[in-house]
Structure formats: C-alpha cells, structure tokens
C-alpha cells in the first residue's frame, strides 16, 4: 500500500465517521436566522430555509471569500442565480418543494443510516427523471422507468410525488415504492453494503442472478437463448463454470454487464 493509498484510506474512514455523526437541523424562518446561517461555521448544521426569498437574504449576508461549511436545504424553488453562491458556501445544497414533514426530516438528518433514506425530491417530466435527495443531502437521480406498474396495474402518478415513512417510502399518488428496492437497483454502494451483510449468507453468482431476476420481475422463460432448466441450474450453482455466451445473454436480459452480475 502506497502512502497515497494510506492517506485516502484515512480520509475515507474520517469521512465515513463524519457521515455517521448526527446533523442538527436549524430552521430559517426569519431574516435574522438567514443572517446567522450565512455566518455560521458549524460543519454539522443543516440550515433549513422555509421560503425561497430567505435564501436571497442568506446569500446577501455572505462574506467573500467564504469558507465552505455546513449544509443548506431550501424548501421551494430558489432562483438559479443563487445556486453557485450557495454551493460555494455550503458543503451540500438541496432544494425542492417536496420534503418530508418537519419531525421526520429532523429524524432522518440525525440518524446514522440517513444515506439510505430520502428526504425529498424533484420530478422532471421533460427528462423523465426524479432527483431524490438522500438524508446526507447528496442527489440521487433515477429514471421514471424505475417505478414499473405492478402486475395488477397499480401505476405511479408522477404528478403526485412525496416522501413518507421517515424517508423509507417514495409515493407517487396511489403507488408506493420501498426505498431499499430503488437503492438496490441503482446504487452499487448500497449493494456492496448489502452483500457485506450477506457475507456469511449466500454470495454466489447463481444467487446474484436469481436476486436480480426477481427484482426485474422476470421468469426463467424470459431469457431467450437460455434453457429455463439451465438457468435454474446456474442459479443453484450446479453449473461449475457457465459458458460465457450464456452469461452474456443473461446479463443483457437483466440489463447489466457480465462483470457486474455478481454484485447483485
């Protein structure tokens, strides 16, 4: 291991520890709160600005050059001109008209698993994507296609988006999605943590293929070019070394690369 590796390891450990420390929510309701937010150097504070107009005041109060520290959440749509200044001043900037209720938002920010929960999001119908804000206020973008109708035809209504259940559920009108199902499909880091948890359980190529096939709601008959019985044997790890061509068909149908198959 090189000194650079050691340093980046140490940095990553420090970052992980920092990410687990609770974040304190401070509500910005008045001009005086906005001024306080502009001058605070507290790394663990999340300033939650209730009205987009207060964000203007916050930026007006900044002293330049400014030191980056803390987080800011804007409830509403801030003027785009404000965003570069806010991003220069705060470690992370999240904004949306759809955030969790106050108590639930504070709970997520204080929790150590906040990265695996969502606090709000923005639905963009033009690009058919949803930008979700994780509890650590990093953005996580997923396509509309992540939310497939159920077999009994319950369909997401993207015009009625909200987050509920303390950040564990995404709602689209009558349709509800479990956040861990979304993270499993779109976040390799989440899958790595999950696999770590399963280390003593089952972590084989066959088990990975089976899990991903289930998640994609496919049957073994959906893999044209691969006999369902062969696929069943692969899933049960009865095939010592599956043929590469077979794995390519399986991976293609599952929408992942052959190399990524074992990560699911």
């Amino acid at each position: 291991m090189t000194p650079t590796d050691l340093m980046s390891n140490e940095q990553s450990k420090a970052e992980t520890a920092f990410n687990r420390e609770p974040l304190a929510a401070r509500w910005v309701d008045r001009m005086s709160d906005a001024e306080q937010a502009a001058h605070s150097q507290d790394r663990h504070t999340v300033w939650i600005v209730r009205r987009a107009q207060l964000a203007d005041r916050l930026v007006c109060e900044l002293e330049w050059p400014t030191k980056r520290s803390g987080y800011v959440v804007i409830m509403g749509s801030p003027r785009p001109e404000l965003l570069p200044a806010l991003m220069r001043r705060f470690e992370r900037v999240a904004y949306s008209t759809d955030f969790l209720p106050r108590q639930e938002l504070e709970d997520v920010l204080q929790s150590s698993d906040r990265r695996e929960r969502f606090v709000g999001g923005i639905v963009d119908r033009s690009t058919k994507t949803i930008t979700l804000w994780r509890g650590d206020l990093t953005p996580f973008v997923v396509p509309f296609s992540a939310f497939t109708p159920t077999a009994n035809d319950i369909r997401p209504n993207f015009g009625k988006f909200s987050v509920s259940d303390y950040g564990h559920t995404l709602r689209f009108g009558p349709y509800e999605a479990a956040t861990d199902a979304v993270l499993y499909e779109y976040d390799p880091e989440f899958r790595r943590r999950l696999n770590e948890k399963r280390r003593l359980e089952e972590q084989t190529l066959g088990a990975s293929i089976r899990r991903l096939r289930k998640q994609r709601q496919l049957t073994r008959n959906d893999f044209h070019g691969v006999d369902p019985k062969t696929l069943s044997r692969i899933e049960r790890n009865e095939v010592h070394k599956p043929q590469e061509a077979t794995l390519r068909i399986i991976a293609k149908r599952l929408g992942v690369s052959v190399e990524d198959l074992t990560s699911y």
Partner: protein
Amino acid sequence: MPLFDPIEKRAYNALTREWREISMPFDLPLPKKLRSLWKVKVQDKEALYEEPHVTIWRKASKWRYSLRSRAFLDKKPDPGEIPKEVMDLIHENFDELIRQWDERFPTNRVAEEDGDDSN
C-alpha cells in the same frame, strides 16, 4: 379488552370487504389504538431480491416479516418490540396479505419454493 370496539369493528369489516376493489399500497387496517403508531404494508415496488414479505412500521423503524417462512428477515430492530396485537392481526389476515403480494409480484409468489423450475 377487545382490540376493536363494535363501531370500529363494523368499519373494519367494511374495509376488509372492500379489499378486493382497493388498488394501492396495501395498508392493513389497524384499530385506532394501534394505527397512530403502527402500519403494516405491502408496497408496490418492493425489495424482490428478498423473500415475499410484509413491512411493519413504527415511525422510522421497520421490520420485514416473511410471508413464506413467517420469520423476520432482519435481526434488527428487535422483533420483540412489535406488540402481540399487531402480529395477531397479521396472522389473522395472512391469506389476504399473501393475495396482495402475489397479485403485485406474480414472478415471486409466496408459494414458490426456492429453486423451483417453474419460474
């Protein structure tokens, strides 16, 4: 003391009769004294890499309970925190919960055995 008072029981029965028409995340109706804190759901996009399950919620805590093996899928939080009344209601309505799951996710049905060639 009964879990439901008579008026609430009538409302509960009416709700359960309507289940077949309801199409949304399946939220098991709970008596008033439990529903301020607890929810029991089958959602519309679920973690299908796990066994078919129902999720039991109390604020930020959640427990996933297998509809196949009747065992909890996670060791934490402690399943002992769930009141007996909630678990009793789950078991009373087990067939309905299975039906709700199977209707949504027919490729991962509750009755399917691991390694079954049929799917």
